[in-house]
């Protein structure tokens, strides 16, 4: 059986995911599929105000090798397992005691 917190967390997860998907879809339609990150947009504009300044990559990016989708998916899964494991240890133990 799921406890109250787990139920609430699952419902919140579904609601938040639904909200993000809806606004992503609206943004995708509104901007004809571009939806670029605001950081690189402002950075590129700032660099254009000066000659010979442009973003460069000094380190190999994982996302260049496997693509953004898989790179961030793997990072999210790893971080999610770390958070889930530690969260359980920190909070479940006290509830069970």
């Amino acid at each position: 059986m799921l406890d109250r917190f787990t139920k609430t967390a699952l419902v919140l997860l579904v609601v938040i995911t639904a909200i993000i998907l809806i606004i992503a879809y609206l943004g995708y339609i509104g901007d004809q599929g571009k939806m670029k990150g605001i950081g690189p947009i402002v950075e590129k504009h700032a660099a254009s105000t000066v000659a010979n300044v442009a973003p460069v990559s000094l380190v190999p990016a994982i996302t260049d090798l496997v693509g953004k989708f898989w790179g961030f998916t793997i990072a999210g899964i790893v971080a999610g397992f770390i958070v889930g494991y530690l969260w359980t240890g920190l909070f479940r133990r006290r509830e069970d005691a």
Partner: protein
Amino acid sequence: MHISDGILAPEWCLVWFAIAIPFIAVGVWQIKRGTKENASYLPMLAMMGAVVFVISVWHIPVPVSGSCSHPIGTPMSAIIVGPFPTVVLGAIALFFQAFFGHGGLTTLGANVVSMGIVGTFSGYLLYVLLRKVNLPLWLAAGMAGFVGAVLCYLTTALQLALSLNPGSVLSHWAIYTVGYMPTQLPLAVAEFVFTVGIVQYIADRRPDLLAKKLWGGVSSA
């Protein structure tokens, strides 16, 4: 707020590193002390590190601006594990994010200052101030998240203007800020919401885990 390599002038990269390093040193010292005093401190730090990494790299689309960006997570972390240790967590997260095409190594100091120091301390100090005037926990935590996120991007805009446009810093600071805000303000509202949710949850279930000292990160029962 992830400034890439090649954007900032080398002297400005050094300046931001010089500002960031003392904060990181104090944070490392507090983490060492905290792990000795409280067994729950290290797992909480590790969890916050993973949370800050994910929150500050995952782009959320903002339809009103037609672009996407991310919250920062450091104000929430500062309330939970303390501000100086959060600077260390922010630095580690930003280092790894450079390998995901976000930020850079030469600009790590600048990014630590904006997200790790300004975002952290502005949010945390506002939280402490609002709690001292007896505002409810949820409002103080939420405002910390909101203000921390906004000030982080104001700092990034200032860093760009100082390095790239030294002759017209104020006007370019304003221009870059105007560029960020349509996307960042809705995300600052999101930062308000999840900061409230997580801090309130921990306060209800494990209040002993919240950082209690103004300049420390040690959660004492």
